[in-house]
């Protein structure tokens, strides 16, 4: 049965982009085997319908996993050289580069982020990510180990772990796709990818490029599905060797539980955060304010590393807040296709309601609103930059991850107090600090319980620097060489060619 292809129009150019709406399994776009359900995609800037795609069922996940397993056993896994994997991943990067404009337009339509940011940052970094891991594919070496060279030889092989379920979120659809796909393919794994049900369009479009690049059928499969359906099915599936998830801590727990209940599959999690951002009195205040604004407003605050708790040294608190409010006001928030715009809406009605309820709770619990807090009357899921001061630790806006452009600002007297406040969270994804005292920078960076500590900057990630959480922000690392460890299973081979065993002992 042929599956529909949606035609989506780019508002500024009138260009029509075709997006396949079927499930991508074995290099083909197919219908669900047993479900008529569809997922509707909406443009968050206009609240208008974009397209419907097939919603995968648990049975569809079965089919996809079987395809991935077959590919792993025949054309991929141990049957493909690092050289070949490198070549294909590089080709994929080239194709994404070729189609960057269309992909950026789709990303902006479905996610809301400004077009130029989607194209130059999300997609630019994604291309770099694929190329980075393409470079690793033929360099994943094991060890040769000395035992007694006259009788034995021991060595390790870094084998691909197998079929990997990958579940990605809606905040950076293309980039999260690249972060997962690149190291998994480089290591030799096959993939069943479940993109977010809010933003499946670019994952489906990218699946066309998988075919064009020349990957054998079944190596990458894409099954848009509800988290509670497709995500749960992957986590529970006995035919999946590893699941990688980026999303909320609540869902991360469910996935780890399901893995334990089923086949003890390997799990890597990149979860939420409530990252602290510390401003010490010796900091360059103007620069620090720029970074702090970036830290909470980039991607409309929908960033697991958002610097959502800002602690400012008492002596500079009022001055800094004034500068920061000024910076926030400079950001133009609107439709991503508008050249002037630096920030878009939040991704969906669900998110919109959630963020606004936190803003209400902030008001109710007595935090002081110094910016924002008023809903727009026009269409679109907009939340304008919102800053609360006079916070106290037990407030919901200080405890919970909001995932929107809502900043909670507190103060501290001493370095020790700053560290204590910063670490007072169950999360541990990122942290930032601004200071011109190098020793202080070192001390505080050492003391912060976070997987990434940014010194005199915020939010900058690089494909060759590892990233991931401590505490309840996650397990495992992405980016850098460490990401490969998540997709590799080490086999030790111990070869006897000289020892004769006496029996009985």
């Amino acid at each position: 049965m042929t599956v529909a292809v949606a035609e989506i129009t780019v508002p500024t150019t009138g260009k029509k982009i075709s997006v396949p709406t079927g499930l991508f399994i074995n290099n083909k776009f197919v219908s669900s085997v047993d479900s008529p359900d569809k997922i509707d995609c909406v443009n968050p800037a206009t609240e208008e319908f974009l397209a419907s795609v097939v919603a995968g069922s648990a049975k569809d996940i079965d089919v996809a996993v079987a395809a991935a397993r077959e590919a792993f056993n025949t054309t991929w896994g141990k049957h493909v050289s690092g050289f070949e994997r490198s070549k294909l991943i590089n080709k994929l990067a080239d194709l994404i580069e070729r189609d960057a404009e269309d992909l950026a337009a789709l990303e902006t339509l479905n996610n809301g982020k400004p077009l130029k940011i989607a194209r130059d940052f999300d997609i630019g970094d994604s291309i770099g990510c694929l190329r980075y891991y393409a470079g690793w594919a033929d360099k994943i070496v094991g060890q040769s180990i000395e035992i007694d060279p006259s009788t034995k030889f021991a060595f390790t092989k870094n084998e691909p772990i197998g079929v990997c379920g990958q579940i990605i979120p809606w905040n950076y659809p293309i980039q999260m796709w690249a972060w997962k796909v690149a190291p998994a393919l480089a290591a030799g794994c096959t993939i069943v990818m479940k993109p977010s049900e809010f933003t499946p369009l670019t994952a489906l479009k990218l699946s066309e490029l998988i075919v064009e690049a020349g990957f054998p059928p079944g190596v990458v499969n894409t099954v848009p599905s509800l988290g509670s359906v497709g995500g749960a099915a992957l986590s529970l599936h006995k035919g999946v060797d590893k699941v990688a998830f980026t999303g909320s801590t609540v869902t991360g727990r469910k996935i780890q539980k399901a893995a334990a209940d089923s086949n003890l599959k390997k799990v890597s999690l990149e979860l939420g955060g409530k990252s602290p951002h510390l401003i010490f009195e010796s900091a360059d205040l103007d620069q620090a304010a720029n970074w702090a604004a970036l830290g909470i407003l980039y991607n409309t605050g929908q960033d697991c590393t958002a610097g959502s708790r800002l602690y400012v040294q008492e002596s500079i608190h009022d001055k800094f807040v004034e500068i920061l409010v000024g910076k926030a006001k400079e950001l133009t928030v609107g439709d991503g296709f508008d050249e002037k715009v630096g920030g878009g809406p939040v991704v969906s009605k669900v998110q919109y309601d959630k963020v606004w309820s936190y803003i209400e709770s902030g008001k109710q619990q007595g935090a002081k609103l110094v910016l924002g807090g008023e809903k727009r009357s026009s269409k679109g899921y907009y939340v304008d930059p919102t800053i609360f001061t006079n916070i106290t630790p037990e407030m919901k806006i200080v405890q919970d991850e909001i995932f929107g452009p809502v900043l909670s600002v507190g103060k501290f007297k001493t370095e020790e107090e700053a560290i204590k406040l910063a670490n007072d969270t169950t999360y541990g994804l990122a942290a930032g600090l601004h200071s011109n005292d190098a020793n202080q920078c070192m001390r505080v960076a050492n003391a912060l319980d976070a997987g990434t500590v940014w010194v005199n900057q915020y939010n900058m990630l690089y494909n060759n620097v590892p990233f991931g959480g401590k505490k309840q922000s996650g397990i495992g690392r992405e980016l850098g060489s460490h990401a490969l460890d998540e997709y590799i299973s080490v086999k030790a081979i111990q070869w006897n060619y000289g020892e004769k065993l006496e029996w009985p002992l």
Partner: protein
Amino acid sequence: MVLTFTRDFDTPLYKGKISVKTGLFINNEWVDAAENDTIDTIDPATGEFITSIADATAKDVDAAVKAATNAFLTTWGTRTPASERGRLLSKLADLVERDADKLAAIEALDAGKFYPHARHMDLNNVINTLRYFSGWADKATGKTIETNEGKFAYTRHEPIGVVAAIVPWNFPLMIASWKIAPALATGNSLIIKPSEVTSLSLLYFADLVKEAGFPAGAFNVVTGYGRTAGQALSEHAEIRKISFTGSTLTGRRIMETAAKTNLKRVTLELGGKSANVVFDDADLEQAIKYTALGIFFHSGQMCAAGSRIYVQSKIYDDFVKGLTAAAQAAKGGSGFEPTTTSGPVASELQFDRVMDYIKSGKEAGATLVTGGERIGNKGYYIQPTIFADVKTDMKIVQEEIFGPVGVIVKFDTDEEALKLANDSVFGLSTAIFTTNINRAINFSNKAESGSVFVNMASLPDYQLSFGGYKESGFGKDMGEYALESYTNVKAVHINTGMRV
């Protein structure tokens, strides 16, 4: 005025037009040599003149060093971020792939190769090597080291600065790529001198480096003689490292010069007299084929040529018969004719050297099993040659001939084979043929060479390190280890809390 050499090929194996600029490539520009002399480059298949290349001297090397230094300090080095260096190398690989047929034709013409070998072995290795090292550029990390709480300690892996490479005439572009790729990936500026016998492919390649987008001065080519241009590179006070592949004699000279001048770092990939050991449990037919490949491919002009062939007594006679048949099946001819299986040696000088060795073997009383004569009277073709009944102290057993001349010796036991194999001042490579895994691993463990090949000839692989023990040199090409040759390690200690 820099001239362009062009040739129209109309042969069964390649049709097309090639053009190569025959100047010096400095600062992304083509320039004449300061002293305007030229060197003739000859087609070894015919002995005929191809074209002239520039004859660089110390003045030109100075200009190249200036350009390389300026690039390193301003536009190249770590000023081009690592991922961008990788990207440029990847682009260069794409361009080499685009022009691979042309480059193979140039190489086959200039170095006397069989065109399909130049295309599928040499050029593919160049492309793979460039791509492999492009991937390393942003992954060559240092370490952070926990010492005590009051200190932050880490190492930086830095490019050395301006480095030089001198490469030989047997696999001109391929061996050049073994130096170019890691040197540029790690951020060094490079000045490379090809052999004066075979400069054309690297000159064509230089234009591709510019097309790929490397900043001016990052990559420079000076063509000329070893005793002038090569010597100038070895002496130069601003060149901090030199990588050489070639004869042991020249390698010594380079190391001496480096020691006498600025103690620049040196890596040497020198000669070999590699052992090729065949046990009686080997797959005989395959062993014969690989052994023939190991000594006759590219007329034996390989540093890792398996030129000392040791065969266990039980299969000796059959082996000799088989190897002789393989040797005699060789058909000399133009590298662009499909029926050719044997090419010329690269130059008249090399031809004379090899023929001298053959003469010495005959005079010393070794038995000529097959070959020993020139093929035809045009071009530098030598018959695949095997000597038997040799004594260890014969020149043909001790010295590297670098031609299609092997010596074959009978042995009885494993211990004897190992002793014979290791009995050489060289230690580049060892090949062993056996179906007994215990024996293979044991022998590999004890072989005194930088590479060991089991049940195959010494065929390098871009993912694996290649470099000798003993007088075959030190330092590795290819594989991750090659990065070390182009890296300076700096340890940084930052006091974050200690007080005196």
